[in-house]
């Protein structure tokens, strides 16, 4: 270490200290990357679960197309809500909020936003995924079926 003129620097760099510092830095860097990676895995896993819940909801509405009445969504005691959508909640560990809206002004119900909803609306600061699905909304009789959209929000509280 002759190129280092000041007293003490040569001794410092010629001992074990630099290697020890590098070992500590390397281990620290690696451990912090493990921590970051673990956070990333957890975050992505949560997103995957929410995406899966949305696709499951799409399948549910596909099967129930033209069978859903406004009451099925607005009533918390309806068979549809308790059996179909709560199953999604249980399976994927997510909260589900649903908005049903008719696209036909002639429909007797659900013609304005938030008129036909079920579940707790997610707060603005919560990470939420949402998708909208076309659906046929049943009116008073089997001959009154209107184009409608179901908007499903999936979030974790």
């Amino acid at each position: 270490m002759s190129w280092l003129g000041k007293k003490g620097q040569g001794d410092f760099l010629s001992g074990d200290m630099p290697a020890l510092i590098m070992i500590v830095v390397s281990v620290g860097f690696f451990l912090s990357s493990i921590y970051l990676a673990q956070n990333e895995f957890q975050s992505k896993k949560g997103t995957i679960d929410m995406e899966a819940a949305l696709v499951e909801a799409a399948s549910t509405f596909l099967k129930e197309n033209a069978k859903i009445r406004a009451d099925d969504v607005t009533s918390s005691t309806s068979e549809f809500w308790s059996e179909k959508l709560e199953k999604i909640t249980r399976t994927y560990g997510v909260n589900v909020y649903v908005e049903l809206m008719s696209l036909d002004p002639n429909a007797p119900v659900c013609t304005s936003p938030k008129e036909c909803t079920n579940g707790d609306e997610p707060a603005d600061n919560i990470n939420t995924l949402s998708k909208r699905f076309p659906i046929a909304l049943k009116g008073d009789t089997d001959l009154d079926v209107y184009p409608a959209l179901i908007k499903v929000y999936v979030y974790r509280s």
Partner: protein
Amino acid sequence: MMARMGLNKKGQAEIMDGLILMLIAATCSVVLLSISSDYGSLPIKIYEETYSQKLAQNTLLSLYHITDQTEGSEYYRKSIMVAVSQELSRGTTDFSLSGDPAGKLIGDVLKKYSDELGREFLFALTNEAAMLDQTVISTDPQVTDAATFRERVGNPYCASAALTYPNSGSCVTGGEAGSMCYTIFEICTWLT
């Protein structure tokens, strides 16, 4: 380790060992972070594709159920696909004509879905897997037939189903099965 490789000055070998360790740690960290950032991208892509597929299927199924609510209309309180079936039995296949009642019903519903969902939709009858140009109804004004569909639409998601209609002498499209004719119709959706 470096001492054995010829670095005999005191401290140099340890520094080299430390540098190698840092290099290994940095490489492992980069690999780990790269794997974690890619994690889930494939399933999410598959879920997005499944969603688009379900969207097309839901739209197709809705056309079977949604009824014409226009009072005084020929198809009042009848399903849209019933209207298509009856038009076909009369020998009409040109649903893209603005005056065709079945075509107008389909166009109205698809436009409503398109406006709300921000996606384009297309309806067409197919014959041997090829779209019949005169039956194409699209929410994208640039897509008017099979050729413009192929040219302009990059990655559509489509769902198809069979439709039967009464055989009134000859089947205008599709096949014949006794007193009934059958054809295939298709709904496609894509992002603009």
